[in-house]
């Protein structure tokens, strides 16, 4: 004879579930009103100083949080399409704060919207001017010769290009997240930039800098149902304050895309996307060929298992192609953004990064 406890979906359980759902529905409505009437939570609150600003570049120094810090400072190179606060969302959800608490001296190259007169900026300006200039300033401020670069997405590409063109230093380590090398493996972006139909010259010659709305739409189109499903998920979790706070911060970040400098975009499309020249070893910057095998410093490359922007195949050639002997590739659970920010990153990437950097930062 079966008892109520043995039955998978016994009536009392259903009643309890229903009561809980009704309670949640009431809470959802109450919290939903809060959602509509309050502003989004503040982001990027870790204390920092802007130590240099030049056009699209802002160089920040985060104030140390430990009494004793590692010798080698970290310079984070943010992706050029987005604001750097994704790595500093909120206390407890900030990679920057985590690194500071672990005893690192953290700097960040963050990007402002390029001005109309900056439409001429090319990849060379980022790789051979902004990065070396920022490294020099970090060296001056920290008093240390060695600097570790940490690059995220296109910030990772720029850091990789810099590393390949400066094998003699002063970069000590290179840590990269979701950095594409084989652009032909970024399937949808590659398809959309089909040279038979995409007249990139006409676009740049008309608009100057690429408007953020266009970039936002492109990223959104990679997962067209994502936004709607996200809204449903938000409504479902409206009674969960932590979920709502996190949703609002990520949503704000996703919506706040930056324009891209016109020439930089034209070059990215022609050289990297159409020509796939970084992967083929044919990319030339300022008359110098960019060869991955010239990178000999310790390298960590973290890729995301479910990355819809930079799939594993696009990032895999990096560690395979560099000349370093101390190199490591890790594939962690998560997506393009959740790899570096949010609860997933707290458990996976951040401890891994700390473990890898610690022994190489003395």
């Amino acid at each position, binding site marked *: 004879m079966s008892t109520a406890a043995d039955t*998978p*979906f016994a009536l009392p*359980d*259903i009643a309890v*579930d229903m009561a809980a*759902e009704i309670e*949640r529905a009431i809470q959802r409505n109450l919290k939903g009103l809060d959602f509509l009437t309050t502003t989004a939570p503040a982001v990027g609150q870790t204390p920092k100083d802007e*130590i*240099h*600003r030049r056009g699209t570049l802002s*160089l920040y*120094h985060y104030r*140390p949080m*430990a*009494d*004793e*810090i*590692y*010798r080698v400072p970290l310079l984070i190179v943010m992706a050029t399409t987005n604001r750097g606060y994704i790595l500093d969302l909120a206390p407890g959800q900030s990679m920057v704060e985590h690194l500071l608490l672990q005893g690192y*001296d953290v700097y960040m190259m963050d990007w402002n919207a390029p*001005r*109309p*007169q900056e439409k001429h900026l090319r990849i060379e300006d980022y790789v051979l001017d902004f990065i070396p200039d920022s490294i020099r*300033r*970090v060296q*001056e*401020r*920290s008093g*240390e010769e060695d600097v570790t670069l940490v690059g995220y997405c296109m910030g990772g590409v720029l850091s990789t290009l810099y590393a390949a063109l400066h094998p003699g230093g002063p970069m000590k380590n290179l840590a990269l997240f979701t950095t594409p090398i084989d652009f032909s493996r970024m*399937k*949808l972006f590659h*398809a*959309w930039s089909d040279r038979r*139909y*995409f*007249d990139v010259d*006409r*676009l740049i010659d*008309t608009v100057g800098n690429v408007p953020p709305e266009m970039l936002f739409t492109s990223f959104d189109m*990679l*997962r*067209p*149902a*994502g936004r709607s*499903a996200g809204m*449903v*998920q938000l409504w479902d979790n409206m009674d969960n304050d932590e979920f709502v706070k996190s949703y609002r911060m990520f949503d704000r970040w996703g919506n706040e895309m930056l324009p891209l400098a016109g020439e930089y975009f034209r070059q990215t499309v022609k050289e990297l996307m159409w020509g796939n020249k970084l992967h083929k070893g044919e990319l030339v910057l300022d008359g110098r060929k960019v060869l991955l095998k010239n990178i000999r410093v310790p390298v960590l490359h973290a890729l995301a298992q479910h990355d819809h922007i930079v799939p594993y195949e696009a990032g895999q050639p990096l560690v395979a192609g560099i000349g370093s*002997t*101390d*190199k*490591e*590739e*890790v*594939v*962690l659970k998560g997506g393009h953004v959740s790899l570096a920010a949010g609860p997933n990153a707290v458990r996976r990437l951040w401890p891994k990064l700390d*473990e890898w950097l*610690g*022994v*190489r930062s*003395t």
Partner: protein
Amino acid sequence: MTNKFSPLDPMAMWRELTAQWEKSTNEFANETMSSDPFRQGMHGGMNASLTAQKALGELMARYLTMLNLPTRADLQVLGEQLQRIDDHLARIARAVEGGPASSVAAPPGPRRTRQPPKAAPAAPPATPPRTRKPPAGKRPA
């Protein structure tokens, strides 16, 4: 093994359906958007829009010049000049207030003598072995 959700729980069913809808819609859309006709149509639309934007911009610029009024480009240049003045003023203000005027003026910081925790793996050898067995989660380099 029990089911993930009760068939009588409407909210659980709704969540499952939403997840399935998202997955199938994304897959279908990605397939469609990879197709040749989609790319052609997308860029055809963009080119038409750019042509119209350019023509309208030129027309407006001519019209404004005729009326002796500044064009968008003129205002942008003016804005840039104001921005530069603003940047200079900010730097001067920081210097006057005694704040860090440049990256060189760093406040005294903590000692740079930190060592990694002892439980952490040892520092990499100068010449690491060529073949390393990667632990779970790592891919061979």
